[in-house]
């Protein structure tokens, strides 16, 4: 008889999703390195944008889903929403860090510095990363499961509220960070839009895989805790 824990493990990321993600990432990499037109001012360096911008959008999507799941948890107290919330927030943090690091890699040759401390977009994005890093530290420090879930849900909802501030930062304050591409009238060639879309879809699929794997881990932890309590009760 198959072990239920191992059996469910194999279903954490369904095979069609894994294949679609792999193909999507390969296709996006080809589009970025080979197919994308070279921008006239920045040259090849501009292609970092195809990693940088989608990772920010994906981080926002993950944090928003995590925040909505946190609200659902507070309303219903169903543990599946807490599992989804922690999975989304942790995966969102990975994408937010990728966004910051790729921005820094671009910033050094473009601006001459890795980081501009006075830039509103950079600082609000860093604040977002710190909020979710704090969320994960908090999660480790509270032992009682229900109390941990409620406290973390509050931080998750608070973190979600920072997203519009990050989004609006380079619209409200004119700083070093380039102007907005989406919803800001930034001119992108139609071929560049296609590359951006391919990268965004690939990264969204990757996010979905990572969230499913992380949520499954949370379920296993919950199951292990329940079994431990059963053993102690005997």
């Amino acid at each position: 008889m198959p072990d239920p824990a191992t059996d469910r493990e194999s279903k954490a990321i369904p095979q069609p999703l894994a294949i679609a993600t792999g193909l999507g990432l390969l296709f996006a990499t080809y589009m970025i390195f080979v197919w994308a037109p070279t921008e006239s001012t920045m040259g090849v360096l501009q292609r970092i944008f195809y990693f940088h911008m989608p990772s920010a959008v994906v981080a926002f999507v993950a944090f928003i889903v995590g925040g909505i799941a946190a609200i659902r948890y507070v309303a219903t107290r169903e543990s599946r929403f807490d599992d989804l919330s922690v999975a989304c927030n942790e995966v969102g943090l990975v994408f937010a860090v990728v966004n910051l690091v790729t921005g820094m890699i671009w910033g050094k040759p473009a601006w001459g510095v890795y980081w501009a401390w006075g830039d509103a977009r950079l600082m609000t994005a860093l604040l977002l990363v710190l909020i979710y890093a704090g969320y994960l530290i908090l999660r480790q420090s509270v032992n009682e499961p229900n109390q941990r879930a409620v406290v973390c849900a509050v931080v998750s909802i608070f973190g979600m509220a920072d997203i519009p501030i990050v989004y609006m930062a380079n619209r409200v304050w004119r700083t070093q960070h380039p102007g907005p591409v989406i919803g800001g009238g930034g001119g992108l060639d139609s071929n560049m839009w296609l590359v951006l879309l391919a990268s965004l879809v690939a990264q969204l699929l990757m996010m979905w895989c990572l969230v499913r794997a992380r949520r499954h881990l949370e379920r296993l932890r919950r199951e292990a805790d329940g079994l431990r309590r059963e053993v102690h009760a005997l």
Partner: protein
Amino acid sequence: MEDSLTILWWAFSVVSVGYVVFLVAVSGQQKRIGEQIRQIRMRLESVEKR
């Protein structure tokens, strides 16, 4: 031009390493906790048999 390509590869590496490290860490934890669950179940079964 070559410098820019190197920088682009750096950015690509950061993205790939981010995904791979996360997936490896999560699957490692899944295996560890899966094994713990199996052992606790065995202990429970042996207690029930007694």
